[in-house]
């Protein structure tokens, strides 16, 4: 697993994507310039989403490695404890069930409380958000082309609206205070 991680690290370190970007930036002549202008934009998007997917894969490997290690610890604990107690050899016994639950709880709770897990978990989520962001960017581009308000434009409106509400609240409170006097 570790070996696989190193391979992924090396893959992303070797900046394949940068080389493509450099290639795209080469000057072109005449009508090719106009044609490649749009093409380059889409190509860059495609490259960046590939880069996100590779990073996501790398982060997922770390995440699953941690989960597998916790699973291994829990199973080892169950085997060790059940060997020492003959009552635990019966697969249907409540005691065994509780032992399994306790062992798994201990292994996974200690994992979930660790900083390493929090970092790995949030890195996976962060890359998933990058993919959503990528889709949002495409949607924004298309909305602009169709002359429809985009999400970021609506966001600005919402922000201003909330500011207006706050200002109104402050004015109302000041007015009420004066009225009470």
């Amino acid at each position, binding site marked *: 697993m570790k070996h696989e991680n190193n391979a992924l690290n090396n893959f992303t370190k070797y900046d394949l994507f940068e080389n493509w970007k450099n290639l795209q930036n080469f000057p072109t002549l005449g009508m090719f310039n106009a044609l490649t202008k749009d093409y380059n934009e889409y190509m860059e998007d495609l490259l960046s989403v590939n880069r996100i997917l590779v990073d996501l894969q790398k982060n997922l490997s770390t995440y699953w490695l941690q989960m597998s290690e916790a699973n291994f610890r829990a199973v080892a604990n169950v085997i060790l404890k059940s060997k020492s107690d003959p009552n635990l050899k019966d697969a249907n016994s409540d005691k065994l069930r509780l032992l399994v639950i306790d062992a798994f709880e201990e292994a*996974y709770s200690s994992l*979930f409380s660790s900083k390493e897990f*929090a970092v790995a*978990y949030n890195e996976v989520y962060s890359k998933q958000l990058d993919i959503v962001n990528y889709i949002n960017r495409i949607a924004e581009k298309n909305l602009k082309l169709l002359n429809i308000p985009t999400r970021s434009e609506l966001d600005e409106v*919402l*922000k201003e609206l*909330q500011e207006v509400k*706050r200002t109104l609240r402050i004015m109302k409170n000041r007015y009420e205070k004066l009225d009470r006097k």
Partner: protein
Amino acid sequence: MIIQDKPTQNRNPVDLTKVARTIELLSKGNHISVGDTPNDIVSETRLYRLLHYHSLVKRVSHTPVLVVYALVNRSYVLDLQPNKSWIRHLLTQGFDVYLLDWKSPTRMDKYVSIDDYVNSYIDDCVEIVQNNNSADKITLHGYCMGSSMSAMYTTLHQEKIKNLVTIAPVIDTSKDTTVIANISRQMDIDKLVSTIGYLPPEKLYEVYSILKPFKQGVNKYFNLIDNIDNESFVQNFLRVEKWLYDTPPIAGETIKQWINDIYKKNLLFKNQFKLGKTTVDLKRINIPLLNIVAEEDHLVSPECSVPLNEVVSSEDRRLIRFHTGHVGLIASSYSQNNVLPKVGQWLKTRSN
């Protein structure tokens, strides 16, 4: 149908009919009633409802109680079922009870901040309760995030509050050892909010599922199979389950402040947390304070809640610890028999 291939000592047969009935019960969905204590909606906006409960006995207290619920899950956990209802118990002790029940924010509410919750929505409700009861001051009573927001409100509008009662408030997050605190400290909440606009419920369920993954997440279903014939157990299980998987999203700006300022920078405890342009200084609180914490709380560590008593200036302040969990504090037989009588007793002597 009972499967037992060969008689063996210590072997509990697996009753497949029980398993089948459990699966059937869970697949039907949770059509179960909650929050049944009679009430009137005295005010409703896009983001909250203010409920006023009907009196069940003659009122003995002149100071109304406004309960401020958290922004996660739904407030009906305080009125889950008649024999485990926090609200009903307060009513039977003679208090006049109001509940601030938060509604679901949408993308439209991306820029609603904690400032809006505290200085606008809580303040509106406090004034409605004051006017309804012709009371100068009321008791503010928060649960979890609602406790932290109640403490913030009290620092800024203390002239309207007679007593502050907090249950499991989030205060000193540097001492919070829960999985929620651990995940929050590493979370890129700015990216999440700029991408999605709010904290989606699915993210909350994801985090809940890793809090006690096997002791609660798995074992509870075994317990349900064992107790499938026990009607009261099943009803209680379904109600709690319904509540666990019923949470609204949290508005973008609100969750950003909550994670960045409270969990990552611990600004509330450091008295540097800002609501708009005003700094929240917990030292300013000098009214009677009752702070209730659960020793086995896995959502807000007791060590995170206890410091509220250390930072306020109130001479009359009390901390009570109970040997139960976060939900056990408010919605259990333990809570009815141990927690609520003490809360009522404390309030009665300070509510006239």
